[in-house]
Protein backbone atom coordinates (compact mmCIF):
# COMPACT_ATOMS: atom_id res chain seq x y z
CA UNK A 1 0.00 0.00 0.00
CA UNK A 2 2.85 2.32 0.92
CA UNK A 3 4.53 1.51 -2.38
CA UNK A 4 1.33 2.43 -4.24
CA UNK A 5 1.20 5.71 -2.31
CA UNK A 6 4.70 6.56 -3.47
CA UNK A 7 4.64 5.17 -7.00
CA UNK A 8 1.27 6.58 -8.07
CA UNK A 9 2.06 10.27 -7.44
CA UNK A 10 5.43 9.76 -9.11
CA UNK A 11 3.71 8.26 -12.16
CA UNK A 12 1.33 11.23 -12.31
CA UNK A 13 4.30 13.60 -12.00
CA UNK A 14 6.08 11.74 -14.79
CA UNK A 15 2.98 11.99 -17.01
CA UNK A 16 2.75 15.73 -16.35
CA UNK A 17 6.45 16.28 -16.97
CA UNK A 18 6.66 14.22 -20.13
CA UNK A 19 3.36 15.45 -21.57
CA UNK A 20 0.25 13.29 -21.49
CA UNK A 21 0.32 12.75 -25.27
CA UNK A 22 3.46 10.67 -25.15
CA UNK A 23 2.13 8.10 -22.69
CA UNK A 24 -0.46 6.04 -24.61
CA UNK A 25 1.81 5.34 -27.60
CA UNK A 26 5.46 4.94 -26.77
CA UNK A 27 6.06 2.41 -29.51
CA UNK A 28 2.83 0.53 -28.92
CA UNK A 29 2.22 -1.16 -32.29
CA UNK A 30 -1.61 -1.53 -32.13
CA UNK A 31 -1.90 2.19 -31.25
CA UNK A 32 0.30 3.21 -34.17
CA UNK A 33 -1.72 1.00 -36.51
CA UNK A 34 -4.98 2.56 -35.28
CA UNK A 35 -3.69 6.11 -35.79
CA UNK A 36 -2.40 5.34 -39.29
CA UNK A 37 -5.69 3.68 -40.24
CA UNK A 38 -7.49 6.89 -39.24
CA UNK A 39 -5.00 8.93 -41.25
CA UNK A 40 -5.51 6.71 -44.29
CA UNK A 41 -9.26 7.12 -43.91
CA UNK A 42 -8.86 10.90 -43.83
CA UNK A 43 -6.47 10.84 -46.78
CA UNK A 44 -8.97 8.83 -48.84
CA UNK A 45 -11.74 11.30 -47.98
CA UNK A 46 -9.35 14.15 -48.84
CA UNK A 47 -8.64 12.65 -52.27
CA UNK A 48 -12.36 12.34 -52.97
CA UNK A 49 -12.85 15.97 -51.89
CA UNK A 50 -9.96 17.32 -53.98
CA UNK A 51 -10.96 15.30 -57.07
CA UNK A 52 -14.44 16.77 -56.78
CA UNK A 53 -13.02 20.30 -56.55
CA UNK A 54 -11.00 19.52 -59.67
CA UNK A 55 -14.28 19.44 -61.58
CA UNK A 56 -15.28 22.96 -60.49
CA UNK A 57 -14.50 25.62 -63.07
CA UNK A 58 -12.40 28.44 -61.63
CA UNK A 59 -11.84 31.42 -63.94
CA UNK A 60 -8.32 32.77 -64.23
CA UNK A 61 -9.39 36.40 -64.63
CA UNK A 62 -9.48 38.48 -61.44
CA UNK A 63 -12.85 38.33 -59.71
CA UNK A 64 -14.72 41.18 -58.16
CA UNK A 65 -15.95 39.84 -54.83
CA UNK A 66 -13.41 39.14 -52.10
CA UNK A 67 -15.06 35.79 -51.31
CA UNK A 68 -14.58 34.71 -54.93
CA UNK A 69 -10.96 35.87 -54.83
CA UNK A 70 -10.45 33.77 -51.76
CA UNK A 71 -11.98 30.69 -53.42
CA UNK A 72 -9.91 31.33 -56.52
CA UNK A 73 -6.80 31.17 -54.35
CA UNK A 74 -7.71 28.35 -51.94
CA UNK A 75 -9.19 25.77 -54.29
CA UNK A 76 -6.05 25.28 -56.43
CA UNK A 77 -3.92 25.13 -53.26
CA UNK A 78 -5.91 22.28 -51.79
CA UNK A 79 -6.13 20.46 -55.12
CA UNK A 80 -2.36 20.60 -55.55
CA UNK A 81 -1.56 19.66 -52.01
CA UNK A 82 -3.82 16.61 -51.92
CA UNK A 83 -3.33 15.31 -55.45
CA UNK A 84 0.28 16.16 -56.26
CA UNK A 85 3.61 15.63 -54.50
CA UNK A 86 4.75 19.06 -53.40
CA UNK A 87 8.37 20.03 -53.00
CA UNK A 88 9.14 23.06 -50.92
CA UNK A 89 12.32 24.68 -49.73
CA UNK A 90 12.53 24.80 -45.98
CA UNK A 91 15.03 26.50 -43.76
CA UNK A 92 16.29 24.43 -40.86
CA UNK A 93 18.40 25.49 -37.95
CA UNK A 94 21.06 23.13 -36.62
CA UNK A 95 22.45 23.94 -33.21
CA UNK A 96 21.06 26.11 -30.47
CA UNK A 97 20.54 29.80 -29.90
CA UNK A 98 22.32 32.35 -32.04
CA UNK A 99 25.06 29.83 -32.89
CA UNK A 100 22.65 27.74 -34.93
CA UNK A 101 23.46 27.37 -38.62
CA UNK A 102 20.66 27.69 -41.10
CA UNK A 103 20.48 25.57 -44.21
CA UNK A 104 17.92 25.10 -46.93
CA UNK A 105 16.52 21.64 -47.43
CA UNK A 106 14.16 20.50 -50.13
CA UNK A 107 11.25 18.74 -48.53
CA UNK A 108 8.76 16.74 -50.54
CA UNK A 109 5.32 16.43 -49.04
CA UNK A 110 3.73 13.33 -50.52
CA UNK A 111 0.38 13.58 -52.23
CA UNK A 112 -2.36 11.85 -50.26
CA UNK A 113 -2.16 8.95 -52.68
CA UNK A 114 1.59 8.52 -52.06
CA UNK A 115 0.94 8.84 -48.36
CA UNK A 116 -1.64 6.04 -48.48
CA UNK A 117 0.77 3.77 -50.40
CA UNK A 118 3.60 4.44 -47.98
CA UNK A 119 1.35 4.06 -44.95
CA UNK A 120 0.12 0.72 -46.23
CA UNK A 121 3.77 -0.41 -46.48
CA UNK A 122 4.23 0.72 -42.90
CA UNK A 123 1.06 -1.05 -41.74
CA UNK A 124 2.20 -4.23 -43.52
CA UNK A 125 5.49 -4.09 -41.64
CA UNK A 126 3.72 -3.51 -38.32
CA UNK A 127 1.21 -6.29 -39.01
CA UNK A 128 4.07 -8.71 -39.62
CA UNK A 129 5.56 -7.68 -36.27
CA UNK A 130 2.23 -8.24 -34.55
CA UNK A 131 1.84 -11.68 -36.10
CA UNK A 132 5.21 -12.57 -34.58
CA UNK A 133 3.78 -11.63 -31.18
CA UNK A 134 5.65 -8.33 -30.90
CA UNK A 135 3.35 -5.69 -29.35
CA UNK A 136 5.71 -2.75 -29.24
CA UNK A 137 8.64 -1.34 -31.17
CA UNK A 138 12.06 -2.29 -29.94
CA UNK A 139 15.14 -0.22 -29.41
CA UNK A 140 17.45 -2.83 -30.97
CA UNK A 141 15.87 -2.71 -34.43
CA UNK A 142 16.94 0.15 -36.68
CA UNK A 143 13.65 -0.06 -38.63
CA UNK A 144 11.63 0.08 -35.43
CA UNK A 145 13.57 3.09 -34.22
CA UNK A 146 13.02 4.89 -37.52
CA UNK A 147 9.28 4.24 -37.41
CA UNK A 148 9.04 5.39 -33.83
CA UNK A 149 10.84 8.61 -34.66
CA UNK A 150 8.71 9.24 -37.72
CA UNK A 151 5.64 8.54 -35.67
CA UNK A 152 6.77 10.77 -32.81
CA UNK A 153 7.46 13.50 -35.32
CA UNK A 154 4.05 13.26 -36.89
CA UNK A 155 2.06 14.30 -33.86
CA UNK A 156 0.27 17.64 -33.74
CA UNK A 157 2.49 20.35 -32.39
CA UNK A 158 5.69 18.72 -33.50
CA UNK A 159 7.87 19.78 -36.39
CA UNK A 160 9.35 17.61 -39.08
CA UNK A 161 12.93 18.78 -38.60
CA UNK A 162 14.10 15.94 -36.34
CA UNK A 163 13.41 13.23 -38.90
CA UNK A 164 16.31 14.30 -41.06
CA UNK A 165 19.35 12.31 -40.18
CA UNK A 166 17.42 9.58 -38.41
CA UNK A 167 15.66 8.26 -41.46
CA UNK A 168 18.81 7.02 -43.17
CA UNK A 169 18.09 5.40 -46.50
CA UNK A 170 14.51 6.55 -46.30
CA UNK A 171 13.14 9.39 -48.39
CA UNK A 172 12.46 12.47 -46.29
CA UNK A 173 8.89 12.57 -47.49
CA UNK A 174 8.03 9.15 -46.09
CA UNK A 175 4.99 9.16 -43.83
CA UNK A 176 5.01 12.94 -43.49
CA UNK A 177 1.35 13.82 -43.83
CA UNK A 178 1.58 16.61 -41.42
CA UNK A 179 -1.65 17.98 -40.12
CA UNK A 180 0.55 19.66 -37.53
CA UNK A 181 1.71 22.20 -40.06
CA UNK A 182 -1.12 24.78 -40.23
CA UNK A 183 -0.32 25.87 -43.77
CA UNK A 184 -1.23 22.38 -44.86
CA UNK A 185 -4.15 21.76 -42.58
CA UNK A 186 -6.47 20.29 -45.16
CA UNK A 187 -9.55 20.17 -42.99
CA UNK A 188 -9.15 23.80 -41.99
CA UNK A 189 -8.77 24.94 -45.60
CA UNK A 190 -11.69 22.76 -46.73
CA UNK A 191 -13.97 24.21 -44.05
CA UNK A 192 -12.91 27.72 -45.06
CA UNK A 193 -13.74 26.90 -48.69
CA UNK A 194 -17.20 25.56 -47.85
CA UNK A 195 -18.05 28.48 -45.58
CA UNK A 196 -16.82 31.03 -48.10
CA UNK A 197 -18.84 29.38 -50.88
CA UNK A 198 -22.01 29.53 -48.79
CA UNK A 199 -21.38 33.16 -47.94
CA UNK A 200 -20.51 34.13 -51.53
CA UNK A 201 -23.79 32.66 -52.79
CA UNK A 202 -25.53 35.70 -51.26
CA UNK A 203 -23.59 38.12 -53.43
CA UNK A 204 -22.69 36.43 -56.67
CA UNK A 205 -23.23 33.59 -59.12
CA UNK A 206 -19.82 33.70 -60.73
CA UNK A 207 -18.86 30.29 -59.34
CA UNK A 208 -20.91 27.14 -58.80
CA UNK A 209 -21.15 27.41 -55.01
CA UNK A 210 -23.49 24.47 -54.65
CA UNK A 211 -21.02 22.23 -56.48
CA UNK A 212 -18.17 23.51 -54.28
CA UNK A 213 -20.16 22.86 -51.10
CA UNK A 214 -21.31 19.46 -52.32
CA UNK A 215 -17.69 18.36 -52.64
CA UNK A 216 -17.85 17.96 -48.86
CA UNK A 217 -20.16 15.01 -49.46
CA UNK A 218 -17.93 11.98 -49.00
CA UNK A 219 -19.31 8.52 -49.70
CA UNK A 220 -22.86 9.88 -50.06
CA UNK A 221 -22.87 11.82 -46.78
CA UNK A 222 -21.92 15.40 -45.94
CA UNK A 223 -18.73 15.24 -43.94
CA UNK A 224 -18.17 17.92 -41.29
CA UNK A 225 -14.38 17.54 -41.65
CA UNK A 226 -14.82 19.37 -44.94
CA UNK A 227 -17.68 21.77 -44.28
CA UNK A 228 -18.26 22.40 -40.57
CA UNK A 229 -22.03 22.33 -41.27
CA UNK A 230 -22.52 18.65 -40.47
CA UNK A 231 -25.19 16.92 -42.54
CA UNK A 232 -26.92 20.07 -43.84
CA UNK A 233 -27.59 20.15 -47.57
CA UNK A 234 -26.63 23.26 -49.55
CA UNK A 235 -29.86 25.29 -49.13
CA UNK A 236 -30.13 24.58 -45.41
CA UNK A 237 -26.43 25.25 -44.85
CA UNK A 238 -26.78 28.47 -46.82
CA UNK A 239 -29.70 29.58 -44.65
CA UNK A 240 -27.67 28.77 -41.57
CA UNK A 241 -24.73 31.02 -42.49
CA UNK A 242 -23.79 33.12 -39.52
CA UNK A 243 -22.98 36.56 -40.78
CA UNK A 244 -22.00 37.84 -37.36
CA UNK A 245 -18.48 36.65 -38.22
CA UNK A 246 -18.40 38.32 -41.56
CA UNK A 247 -15.24 37.18 -43.23
CA UNK A 248 -12.92 34.21 -43.43
CA UNK A 249 -10.16 36.44 -42.18
CA UNK A 250 -12.17 37.44 -39.11
CA UNK A 251 -12.86 33.84 -38.25
CA UNK A 252 -9.20 32.90 -38.10
CA UNK A 253 -7.83 32.62 -34.61
CA UNK A 254 -4.17 33.32 -34.99
CA UNK A 255 -1.73 34.23 -32.27
CA UNK A 256 -1.97 37.77 -33.52
CA UNK A 257 -5.72 37.75 -33.08
CA UNK A 258 -5.37 36.27 -29.63
CA UNK A 259 -2.92 39.01 -28.77
CA UNK A 260 -5.30 41.55 -30.19
CA UNK A 261 -8.15 40.07 -28.21
CA UNK A 262 -6.09 40.37 -25.04
CA UNK A 263 -5.43 43.96 -25.90
CA UNK A 264 -9.11 44.53 -26.58
CA UNK A 265 -9.95 43.40 -23.06
CA UNK A 266 -7.31 45.66 -21.64
CA UNK A 267 -8.70 48.48 -23.75
CA UNK A 268 -12.25 47.90 -22.53
CA UNK A 269 -11.00 47.96 -18.98
CA UNK A 270 -9.33 51.30 -19.65
CA UNK A 271 -12.58 52.68 -21.09
CA UNK A 272 -14.50 51.56 -18.03
CA UNK A 273 -11.95 53.18 -15.72
CA UNK A 274 -12.22 56.39 -17.73
CA UNK A 275 -16.01 56.29 -17.42
CA UNK A 276 -15.77 55.80 -13.67
CA UNK A 277 -13.36 58.69 -13.34
CA UNK A 278 -15.80 60.93 -15.16
CA UNK A 279 -18.62 59.96 -12.83
CA UNK A 280 -16.73 60.51 -9.60
Amino acid at each position, binding site marked *: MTIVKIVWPMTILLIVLTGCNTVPYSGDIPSIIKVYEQKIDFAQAGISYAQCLNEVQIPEAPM*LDPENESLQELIPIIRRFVLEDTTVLEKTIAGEGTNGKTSDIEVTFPSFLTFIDESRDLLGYLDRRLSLGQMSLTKNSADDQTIEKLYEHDRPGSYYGPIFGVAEGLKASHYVITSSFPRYDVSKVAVAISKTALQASY*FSDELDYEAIYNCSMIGGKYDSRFNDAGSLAFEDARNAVDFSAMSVEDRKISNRDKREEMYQRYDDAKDTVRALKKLF
Partner: protein
Amino acid sequence: MRCIFLFVALVASASAVSDVDYGTIKISGGRPLHQAEKIGRYKRDLYRKYSYIRCVNYQLVKHFGSDSYNETEKIFPADLAETLYLVKSKLSALTAQRESLLLHHDTLPEDNISFDEQHAVNQSQKHAGKIKERLDLVFDQISARRVTEGNVAICDKVLNR
Protein backbone atom coordinates in the same frame (compact mmCIF):
# COMPACT_ATOMS: atom_id res chain seq x y z
CA MET B 1 -32.64 52.23 -4.83
CA ARG B 2 -29.86 54.79 -5.13
CA CYS B 3 -27.37 51.97 -5.65
CA ILE B 4 -29.46 50.48 -8.44
CA PHE B 5 -29.71 53.86 -10.12
CA LEU B 6 -25.96 54.36 -9.78
CA PHE B 7 -25.28 50.92 -11.20
CA VAL B 8 -27.55 51.54 -14.20
CA ALA B 9 -25.90 54.91 -14.78
CA LEU B 10 -22.46 53.30 -14.61
CA VAL B 11 -23.34 50.57 -17.08
CA ALA B 12 -24.96 53.04 -19.48
CA SER B 13 -22.01 55.36 -19.26
CA ALA B 14 -19.45 52.60 -19.77
CA SER B 15 -21.26 51.24 -22.81
CA ALA B 16 -21.61 54.75 -24.28
CA VAL B 17 -17.87 55.26 -23.97
CA SER B 18 -17.01 51.95 -25.61
CA ASP B 19 -19.17 52.77 -28.66
CA VAL B 20 -17.00 53.91 -31.52
CA ASP B 21 -18.36 56.66 -33.71
CA TYR B 22 -17.57 55.58 -37.25
CA GLY B 23 -19.28 58.59 -38.78
CA THR B 24 -16.16 60.64 -38.15
CA ILE B 25 -12.82 58.92 -38.09
CA LYS B 26 -11.36 58.72 -34.61
CA ILE B 27 -8.82 56.00 -35.16
CA SER B 28 -5.54 57.87 -35.40
CA GLY B 29 -3.09 57.80 -32.52
CA GLY B 30 -2.56 55.31 -29.72
CA ARG B 31 -0.52 52.17 -29.31
CA PRO B 32 -0.05 50.02 -32.44
CA LEU B 33 -2.28 47.13 -31.40
CA HIS B 34 -4.89 49.56 -30.14
CA GLN B 35 -4.97 51.15 -33.58
CA ALA B 36 -5.04 47.73 -35.25
CA GLU B 37 -8.02 46.70 -33.16
CA LYS B 38 -9.90 49.87 -34.08
CA ILE B 39 -9.13 49.37 -37.75
CA GLY B 40 -10.47 45.82 -37.37
CA ARG B 41 -13.77 47.08 -35.96
CA TYR B 42 -14.01 49.79 -38.58
CA LYS B 43 -13.31 47.26 -41.31
CA ARG B 44 -15.97 44.87 -40.04
CA ASP B 45 -18.59 47.62 -40.12
CA LEU B 46 -17.55 48.62 -43.62
CA TYR B 47 -17.55 45.02 -44.80
CA ARG B 48 -20.99 44.35 -43.34
CA LYS B 49 -22.63 47.26 -45.18
CA TYR B 50 -20.67 46.50 -48.33
CA SER B 51 -21.91 42.91 -48.23
CA TYR B 52 -25.51 43.97 -47.63
CA ILE B 53 -25.45 46.27 -50.66
CA ARG B 54 -23.85 43.56 -52.79
CA CYS B 55 -26.54 41.13 -51.69
CA VAL B 56 -29.42 43.52 -52.53
CA ASN B 57 -27.83 44.38 -55.85
CA TYR B 58 -27.32 40.71 -56.73
CA GLN B 59 -30.87 39.69 -55.77
CA LEU B 60 -32.44 42.57 -57.75
CA VAL B 61 -30.38 41.92 -60.86
CA LYS B 62 -31.25 38.24 -60.59
CA HIS B 63 -34.96 39.07 -60.29
CA PHE B 64 -35.37 41.91 -62.78
CA GLY B 65 -32.27 41.72 -64.99
CA SER B 66 -30.07 44.80 -64.94
CA ASP B 67 -32.11 46.85 -67.47
CA SER B 68 -35.53 46.62 -65.90
CA TYR B 69 -33.91 46.84 -62.50
CA ASN B 70 -32.77 50.36 -63.46
CA GLU B 71 -36.29 51.42 -64.36
CA THR B 72 -38.16 49.76 -61.58
CA GLU B 73 -35.94 50.35 -58.62
CA LYS B 74 -34.15 53.58 -59.47
CA ILE B 75 -31.01 52.10 -57.98
CA PHE B 76 -28.36 51.99 -60.64
CA PRO B 77 -26.11 48.96 -60.75
CA ALA B 78 -23.37 50.90 -62.56
CA ASP B 79 -23.20 53.49 -59.74
CA LEU B 80 -23.26 50.75 -57.17
CA ALA B 81 -20.49 48.88 -58.95
CA GLU B 82 -18.19 51.88 -58.71
CA THR B 83 -18.89 52.40 -55.00
CA LEU B 84 -18.43 48.72 -54.31
CA TYR B 85 -15.14 48.69 -56.20
CA LEU B 86 -13.84 51.61 -54.12
CA VAL B 87 -14.92 49.97 -50.87
CA LYS B 88 -13.28 46.69 -51.82
CA SER B 89 -9.97 48.40 -52.55
CA LYS B 90 -10.16 50.25 -49.26
CA LEU B 91 -10.95 47.05 -47.39
CA SER B 92 -7.80 45.47 -48.85
CA ALA B 93 -5.75 48.52 -47.90
CA LEU B 94 -7.12 48.47 -44.34
CA THR B 95 -6.38 44.76 -44.06
CA ALA B 96 -2.77 45.36 -45.06
CA GLN B 97 -2.49 48.26 -42.66
CA ARG B 98 -3.95 46.26 -39.80
CA GLU B 99 -1.59 43.35 -40.52
CA SER B 100 1.33 45.76 -40.47
CA LEU B 101 0.25 47.24 -37.13
CA LEU B 102 -0.17 43.77 -35.68
CA LEU B 103 3.52 43.10 -36.27
CA HIS B 104 4.23 45.48 -33.41
CA HIS B 105 4.00 44.75 -29.71
CA ASP B 106 2.34 46.91 -27.16
CA THR B 107 4.47 45.80 -24.28
CA LEU B 108 7.59 47.83 -25.04
CA PRO B 109 7.59 51.64 -25.06
CA GLU B 110 10.17 51.65 -27.87
CA ASP B 111 7.88 49.64 -30.10
CA ASN B 112 5.87 52.63 -31.21
CA ILE B 113 5.33 52.93 -34.93
CA SER B 114 7.46 55.41 -36.81
CA PHE B 115 6.34 58.93 -37.61
CA ASP B 116 6.06 58.09 -41.31
CA GLU B 117 4.05 54.97 -40.63
CA GLN B 118 1.70 56.89 -38.35
CA HIS B 119 1.30 59.56 -41.00
CA ALA B 120 0.40 56.89 -43.59
CA VAL B 121 -2.12 55.36 -41.18
CA ASN B 122 -3.74 58.75 -40.55
CA GLN B 123 -3.95 59.55 -44.26
CA SER B 124 -5.47 56.17 -44.97
CA GLN B 125 -8.07 56.69 -42.25
CA LYS B 126 -9.09 60.01 -43.73
CA HIS B 127 -9.49 58.40 -47.13
CA ALA B 128 -11.42 55.50 -45.60
CA GLY B 129 -13.74 58.03 -43.97
CA LYS B 130 -14.62 59.58 -47.33
CA ILE B 131 -15.33 56.19 -48.89
CA LYS B 132 -17.42 55.22 -45.91
CA GLU B 133 -19.53 58.35 -46.23
CA ARG B 134 -20.26 57.38 -49.82
CA LEU B 135 -21.09 53.82 -48.82
CA ASP B 136 -23.32 55.01 -45.98
CA LEU B 137 -25.36 57.15 -48.37
CA VAL B 138 -26.08 54.15 -50.57
CA PHE B 139 -26.66 51.92 -47.58
CA ASP B 140 -29.16 54.37 -46.02
CA GLN B 141 -30.93 54.77 -49.33
CA ILE B 142 -31.29 51.03 -49.85
CA SER B 143 -32.09 50.02 -46.31
CA ALA B 144 -34.65 52.85 -45.92
CA ARG B 145 -36.56 51.66 -48.99
CA ARG B 146 -36.96 48.16 -47.58
CA VAL B 147 -37.12 46.64 -51.04
CA THR B 148 -39.48 43.68 -51.07
CA GLU B 149 -39.10 42.46 -54.63
CA GLY B 150 -37.13 39.41 -55.58
CA ASN B 151 -35.47 37.58 -52.76
CA VAL B 152 -34.06 40.74 -51.19
CA ALA B 153 -35.44 39.82 -47.76
CA ILE B 154 -32.70 37.20 -47.52
CA CYS B 155 -30.15 40.03 -47.32
CA ASP B 156 -31.43 40.98 -43.88
CA LYS B 157 -29.50 37.96 -42.68
CA VAL B 158 -26.30 39.68 -43.74
CA LEU B 159 -27.10 42.47 -41.29
CA ASN B 160 -28.23 39.99 -38.65
CA ARG B 161 -31.68 41.52 -38.41
